């Protein structure tokens, strides 16, 4: 067993797990943070995407021990009971998700992009989401939603008037 201490969504979390535990298993099974999904388990689908020290990674391809001491953001870290993150708000408003299984990964990939690049063009958005497979939507509304969220985050008027914060 290995002792692990990581910061998850701003909170220091500790666990003792077997060495072969992935970061995804640690988050889901030990910390009950089931927002990151287990899809392919081999790095192809991006359903397990989380942000580690600012970078989007596939949690299924990282050992929990490799995350020791690092700063992790999961989808649970974005919203609270009062407010959505602008990305979540924009995704909801655009109807950018259908079944939603890919959603946490897509939104975190988009967040990692916007944290570094507040005004990405469509090509940059597509590049940032290329590792997040969605079997339902066809991506068009997701890209619109990311553009809208970027506008909200930059403090510019949103494109759709129906967008309301909760």
């Amino acid at each position: 067993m290995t002792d692990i201490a990581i910061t998850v969504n701003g909170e220091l979390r500790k666990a003792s797990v077997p060495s072969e535990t992935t970061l995804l298993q640690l988050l889901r099974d030990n910390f009950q943070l089931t927002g990151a999904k287990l899809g392919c388990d081999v790095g192809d689908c991006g359903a397990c995407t989380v942000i580690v020290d600012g970078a989007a990674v596939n949690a299924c391809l990282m050992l929990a021990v490799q995350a020791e001491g690092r700063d992790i953001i999961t989808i649970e870290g974005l919203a609270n009971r009062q407010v959505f993150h602008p990305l979540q708000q924009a995704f909801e408003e655009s109807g950018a998700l259908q079944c939603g299984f890919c959603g946490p990964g897509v939104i975190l990939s988009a967040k990692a992009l916007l944290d570094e690049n507040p005004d990405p063009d469509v090509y940059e958005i597509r590049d940032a989401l290329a590792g997040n497979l969605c079997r339902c939507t066809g991506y068009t509304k997701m890209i619109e939603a990311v553009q809208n969220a970027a506008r909200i985050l930059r403090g510019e008027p949103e494109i759709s008037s129906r967008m309301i914060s909760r």
Partner: protein
Amino acid sequence: MRPFQVYVAKDSEHAVSLLCEHAPRAVILAGGTDLLVDLKHGSKPWDVIVDISRAEDLNAITLTGEGLAIGARVTHTDIMRSPVIRESAPALIDAAHSIGAVQTRNLGTIGGNLMTCVPSMDSGPALLALDAGVTIRGPEGLRRLPLAELFVGPRKTSLAPTEILVDIVIPKHNLGKPLVFLKFGLRKGQALALVNVAAGCRLNGGKVWEPTIALGAVAPTVIRAQAAEAYLAGRAPSEQNLSETGRIAAQEAKPISDFRASADYRRDLIAVLVARALRQACAGTEIEQAEMIA
């Protein structure tokens, strides 16, 4: 995954001593984007994982008297963001950008890409075309090898189980050499190359000088197309000569047919991509020379 022990190496020397202690059942872990898949689905019974993802001496990109040294655990994202690489070997940035998707590039390393040694590796062709060397650390210390001698066959390198890759060095005289990397996959993202090509040259008095052509995914390892290089050297970069160079490269490659593409299709791709890469590289050279005159 079956149980294993993980040791975190603080630097390359520490990693080698851990490998010596636990060989042959120990394996290096860098970004894990290949190794974790192997640990989940492969058959190798590794008991000990030596994690170099925090090794202090393996993550630098440095210009030295010898050339440009890229540490083995530099990630594909690091390469894409490196001003030094953008300046001196931009084809490496195109190659890094073509790998998988953001998540894979954030974890995956250049060293891991070379060491996994699949013929379709995207880091291989540009480095091979630039005559890169690799530094290897073993129990006896450091040794240097031409990159071509690292590659032995599919998923096989010449490293001993107690050795690790330390860095990749592009010789000084090839920094800034016009070189173009092109990859043809079935999609833009998350797709391995059907064929990838790095080709470049200099122009001297309207003649091609030092052409280098490297091909991936069309032989057991990444290879140089030596017959094509020999043909083009000293000739004018005319459309006809570049097409002929592509045709010769296609002949000397040994592509296979698999579920992604037939060997014939891959040969056609080689001919087209080699000519296209050379055309772009020559255009780059001419622009540079024009700028120098102006």
